[in-house]
């Protein structure tokens, strides 16, 4: 095959301080990722980086040659959040990643193209075709779907629509009105004291046998293990996947991008697969992609 899959950096799912965010995107500007998603997708109380800042970061990244997409909040509850979403969807600079159906409604009504994110439910070809008629240009495969479903969906995909796969990161598993990070400190959401700032890779939840199981990230619940598909890149390429998404973690993200960059170009992995595992906070999983429970980890037969 002649094409190379693109690399994207997904939105930061955690609450990092402003300095860290700015540094991260300065480094990202020099990375081999072609696409960068920006914005707060979890909690509207996280305002270390404001909407004007995101636009400024986006403009800088654009000048570095990156395709910039602004990501919308995943779960909308308050009227003020709708106000912010409307503002985001009115922006004339960048395409928007819709992480909720209301963003799709606003964008399609305004005649704008859009992307849908990993927690947006698209499970079949009829949904894909319908959304394509509304302006969908790229979609992220729901994280719980595997290669079998991907293969079928690729066959049904309308022409011109790009497919992106969540390729590395703690999995976004659930969203709630309740803030679990605040709850873990015995605080209500309305008085959360911004505890998320203390957990830049989320707060670990373990079973009573000390098995790292989930991660609390404010109102979002993630997997404790990091989903990673490095060994499946040949299959993903064969299925015509266009973009591989790397979800930022607090450290090591740039090195991870280098590893995926080498792998997507077809270079021999050598020890890179082992190195990748050492970069993950707790360990790896890839079960969803190979049609197993998401927490399972199956090494490719060739490894």
């Amino acid at each position, binding site marked *: 095959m002649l094409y190379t899959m693109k690399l994207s950096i997904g939105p930061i799912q955690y609450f990092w301080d402003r300095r860290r965010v700015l540094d991260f995107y300065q480094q990202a500007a020099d990375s081999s990722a072609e696409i960068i998603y920006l914005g707060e997708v979890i909690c509207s109380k996280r305002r270390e980086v404001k909407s004007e800042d995101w636009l400024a970061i986006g403009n800088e990244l654009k000048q570095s040659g990156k395709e910039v997409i602004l990501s919308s909040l*995943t*779960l*909308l*509850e*308050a009227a003020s959040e*709708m106000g912010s*979403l409307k503002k985001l969807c009115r922006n004339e600079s960048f395409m928007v990643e819709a992480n*909720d*159906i*209301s963003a799709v*409604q606003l964008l*399609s009504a305004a005649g704008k193209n859009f992307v849908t994110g990993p*927690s947006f*439910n*698209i*499970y*079949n*070809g*009829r*949904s894909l075709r*319908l*959304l394509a008629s509304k302006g969908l240009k790229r979609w992220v495969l*729901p*994280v*719980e*779907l595997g290669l079998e479903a991907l293969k*079928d*969906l690729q*066959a*049904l995909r309308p022409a011109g629509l790009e497919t992106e796969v969540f390729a590395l990161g703690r*999995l976004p*598993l*659930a*969203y*709630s*009105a*309740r*803030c679990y990070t605040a*709850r*873990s400190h015995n605080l*209500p*959401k*309305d008085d959360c004291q911004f505890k998320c700032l203390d957990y830049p890779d989320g*707060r670990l*939840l*373990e*079973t*009573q*046998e*000390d*098995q790292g*199981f*989930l991660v609390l990230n404010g109102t979002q*619940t993630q*997997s404790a293990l990091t989903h990673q598909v490095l060994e499946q890149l040949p299959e993903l390429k064969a299925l015509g996947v266009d973009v591989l998404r790397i979800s930022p973690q607090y450290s090591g993200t740039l090195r991870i991008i280098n590893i995926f960059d080498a792998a997507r170009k077809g270079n021999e992995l050598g020890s890179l697969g082992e190195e990748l595992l050492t970069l993950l906070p707790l360990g790896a999983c890839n079960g*969803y992609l190979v049609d*197993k*429970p*998401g*927490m399972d980890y199956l090494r490719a037969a060739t490894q």
Partner: protein
Amino acid sequence: MELVCPAGNLPALKAAVDNGADAVYVGFKDDTNARHFAGLNFTERNFEKAVRYAQDRGRKVYVAINTFPQPSGFERWKAAVDQAADYGVNALILADMGVLDYASERWPELRLHLSVQASVTCAEGIRFYHENFGIRRVVLPRVLSVSQVAHVITESPVPVEVFGFGSLCVMVEGRCLLSSYATGRSPNTYGACSPASHVRWEETGDGTNIRLNGVLIDHYREGEKAGYPTLCKGRFQVGENTFYALEEPTSLNTLSILPELRKIGVSAIKVEGRQRSPAYVAQVTAVMRAAIDQCMSDADAYQPKDQWMRELASVSEGSQTTLGAYHRPWQ
């Protein structure tokens, strides 16, 4: 306010109708609905009887086809839509955009409700489904406070149904993959959460371990009452503490806020529990019927009776109830 009650089989449907449900919602015996449990739901033969029993008594039948078909299974979802339509049900409760698209095209006259599984929390989202598929009602996820529900109602193009009683999902319905992360089966893909096929009870020296596909969800000491290991209602360790990190075993109960729900313009109250027994359905339906009737006749004088609260607590998870997200401090 319409009272919408669950039925996992014909006796439960009769119990709902006989105890005053305005509408009963049911599902077929496969993965096209979000209560895909062994021994539950309706074959075609029982389905016909169910529709007749309810409609002969002036009640409505809604059919939940509210999971998300993948390409390989899409025909099964279409068949479910067609079967429900053929029997003249009063509405379909749908979640997937592709299924909604099919149903609205094939059966343009049939009334469609947007399932809670579609995860729609604001009016803009409701508008999408209204404009594209002509939905005539939306069921809201259990993540909004009462004032947020009120705001949605003022802007929504269609009437709003909310949950009034039953097991509490603490995550936004339709966007919770905890179960498939642990077992490979989620409500979206398979119609089940924390499926019984993956549960293991294990005696230990000092009590019982409950595992879901090997993952320890909870440990009960001797004499502690053990519940079903729904993933989000187990005890886990976070930092130094072992506790119900996500939620306790508890059920939603809105009896104390019924007048508020009426005042803000809620059109229908849904009771959760298609997986529960006919006795549960009878008891909860009777209590909710009495409460709604009293609330509608004189909202100012309305007070939930102690006996209602006791009866509902007795059929609740962990024998306790909560207002959930309706009540801001819960969040």
